[in-house]
């Protein structure tokens, strides 16, 4: 009897009690929206009735280890591999009697997320010897919408001063469109340094663009043998006015101001070099 008197009101109240149950705090996300929920091994298309609430099965299968293809054919080509040779700067520079040529050429092969990326840069006296040359080889991996992580190595072919480095950095675009390349290096002797390059182009017409450019180097150690002091070693500011004849071929003229700092500047002056130089430049940007 007692059970009955408690039981009946409880039974009558139960819809009320259930209705007052607080709503769940966390809203379940769609099933396998990101494929992270744990799955039994070999999980494939179990015959399910639609689960209650917001849970739906969005994917018919979700453990495909290869792209969906029927009849042995992939319907589209979103993993197309491309190559590009990109001549960022190929220029003749002159500051008084000091004449030289400079190249900065990148080349890469790969897909959307991973690339084999080569960067080459160097200077050569007109009719003379190569003053400096470097080659960097990277694995480029897309880590953010606008950023690639670069991991690789660098080798300097400077006459009598060849050195190798491990290199790592980021290449990409900051907000407001600044093309940026920041790379840190550790040389074979254990010396650390980094380099930052920033470019941004402004269109004056559909074909005429102005590109300010900044490059700066920093060394963590004194390396007198290579004319490098610690701290900021130098800065290069450039301004290039480019005319795009085709997107693949754009000649330019401009100026480039270079300044060495601190011990680096002293070491270079001792060697007979200049602390500061202002070049008039003329060159071409190209790709194919």
């Amino acid at each position, binding site marked *: 009897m007692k059970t009955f008197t408690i039981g009946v009101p409880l039974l009558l109240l139960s819809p009320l009690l259930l209705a007052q149950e607080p709503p769940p705090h966390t*809203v379940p*996300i*769609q099933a*396998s*929206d*990101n*494929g992270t929920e744990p799955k039994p091994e070999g999980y494939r*298309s179990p015959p399910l009735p*639609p*689960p*209650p*609430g*917001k*849970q*739906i*099965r*969005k*994917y*018919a*299968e*979700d*453990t*495909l280890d290869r*792209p*969906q*293809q*029927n*009849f*042995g*054919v*992939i*319907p*589209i*080509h*979103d*993993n*197309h591999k*491309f190559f*590009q040779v990109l001549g960022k700067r190929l220029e003749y520079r002159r500051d008084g009697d000091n004449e030289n040529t400079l190249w900065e050429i990148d080349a890469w092969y790969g897909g*959307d*997320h991973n690339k084999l990326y080569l960067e080459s840069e160097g200077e050569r006296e007109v009719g003379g010897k190569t003053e400096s040359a470097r080659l960097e080889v990277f694995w480029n991996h*897309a*880590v*953010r*919408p*606008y*950023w690639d992580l670069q991991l690789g190595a660098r080798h300097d072919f400077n006459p009598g001063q060849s050195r190798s480095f491990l290199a790592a950095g980021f290449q990409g*675009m900051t*907000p*407001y*469109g600044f093309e940026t390349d920041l790379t840190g290096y550790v040389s074979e002797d254990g010396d650390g340094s980094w380099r930052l390059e920033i470019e941004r182009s*402004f*269109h*004056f*017409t*559909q074909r005429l663009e102005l590109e300010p450019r900044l490059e700066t180097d920093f060394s963590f150690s004194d390396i007198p043998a290579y004319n490098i002091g610690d701290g900021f070693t130098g800065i290069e500011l450039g301004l290039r006015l480019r005319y795009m004849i085709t*997107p693949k071929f754009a000649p330019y003229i401009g100026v480039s101001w270079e300044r060495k700092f601190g011990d680096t500047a002293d070491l270079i002056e001792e060697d007979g070099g200049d602390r500061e130089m202002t070049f008039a430049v003329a060159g071409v940007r190209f*790709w194919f």
Partner: protein
Amino acid sequence: MAQQEEDGQPLFGTRRQFLRTLGAGVFSTGINTTFPLASWALTSPKYLHGGIRDHQPQTYFDLAFHNTPLEIDGRTGNATAINGTVPGPLIRWREGDTVTLDVTNNMPDTKHASIHWHGILVPFRMDGVPGVNFNGIQPGETYRYQFRVKQAGTYWYHSHSFLQEQSGSYGPLVIDPKDGEPFLYDRDHVVVLSDWAFTNPETLFRNINLSPEYYIYYKRTVFDYLRDVRKMGFADANAELLPFRRMNMSPRDLSNVTGYIYTYLMNGHSPDMNWSGKFLPGETVRLRIINSSSMSNFDVRIPGLDMDVVMVDGKAVKPVRCHEFRIGVAETYDVLIRPRDANAYTLYAESLDRSGYARGTLAPESGMQAPIPAPRPVPDRKLEDIGMGMMKGKYFGGMSDAMKKKLHRKRMEMQDDSIPGPNGPMPFLPNKDNPNVAMVVMNPQNRLAEPGVGLGHDGWKVLTYKDLASAEPQPYKPTVDREMCINITANMERFIFSLDGKKFTEQPGPYLFRHNERLRLFLVNHTMMEHPMHLHGMWMQLENGASHNEIPYKHTILIKPGEALSVLITPIEKGDWAFHCHLLYHMEAGMFQVVRVA
């Protein structure tokens, strides 16, 4: 050309001389192999096209792909033409017939060819997408398509193999209803709009992959900025532009491939070749306008004439009078015009980015033409246009946590637990590490009543999706069994186009639709561009505010930037079906998915 307009002289050229040497018989044969234009499209200044009345429905078609030289404006390009013409032959069926189509691939250098019957309800194996419905048609092989035609209206067909659509593998498809047309007219013309490039499509694809602005010659310049500063003031100009720059976007991301490289065609005719169709004053003329472009959305108008839109994507709608409409890639619009005077009218299709146009003439007699409208200026997108209105004037920092919470709460309030699936587009919570997603629209809007970027400021009526009310029977119940949301995402800088942040080859598997369920599918566009989203094998009924019995049928929906919309789908045929953006290079770059109906 302006000269010729002034003195009203017809355009004489090599075409006319060629036609003179051509036998009269060429006009009566369905297919001709010597001339790159199909007979249904063939005109000249001396010959007005009378309409497609003479092209009777047939139940058998023999179609073949050939590498065909195509001459346009004195330049010769390489086409992957169907039966030797661009566009291909007019295919006309009758509703209820069982049709047979033998398609042969005579292009030895291809992996495969294929024909997809765009918008046609067919059994799974007849849909013609290599890698989804069959393995393609290998060189030298013939594939037999055979199915019963269950619908009527204006459609088109095209290749679904790599980039063949760009090089001319498309044509019109007209189906006569078995019970008579739902409206009266005296004459009908097929108007196929397309974009032709003399550049090899693979080169084009590579160029825009490596340099997304390769063909853009309407970039914003420093002078545009200074003009805005003068007009709007320094603060306002910056408030509008700098948030775009902060996101590394341009207000002029309007299209990837422009009139710089494209010659826009109307029935295979360049603007100078001027396709001309006949009408007699007082007639009601039906124009079956089909956008067979690879990458170009068009704004269509006929200065001086009202247009009554009576059919959209092959399905009848209640007539809507308008002066201009935007036709997304792969859409079809049937309009009725009633010219009363014996004047020439220009049929003008301006590309969305204003970089060019296709044009033709409608005239009672040959040799007439009307002025060509001046191109309108390139529009700039506003932050509101891309669902980023809240970003206006924000130069640094992201959305505040309070703002995110508020948006999330708003979205949660729209949830209805009675229907499985998210009720309303769930806030898309992106993985910030995902290189495929350059932009996430936190507050997508309903934009069905908006005509779209660059339209609606000319003082005339522009059609919107909101205006469409179906005039077809509604066989489906109003209740919804299940809901699903698909986010349209992209990173144009890397030329990655994706759905839910995943390229096709990164998707964990096909989407699951259940056979004969009533599914509400939400689409949210998180990109800067319009995407014509196409679903194979079933209709999408666009929930545009019309009553349940009048929601319009669509096979392709042009979704605007920052837009969220929903469609109702009843998957009637089991099997795998393609769902993709119909901009060819977006599809090839990953904006493609397989839908499994099981």
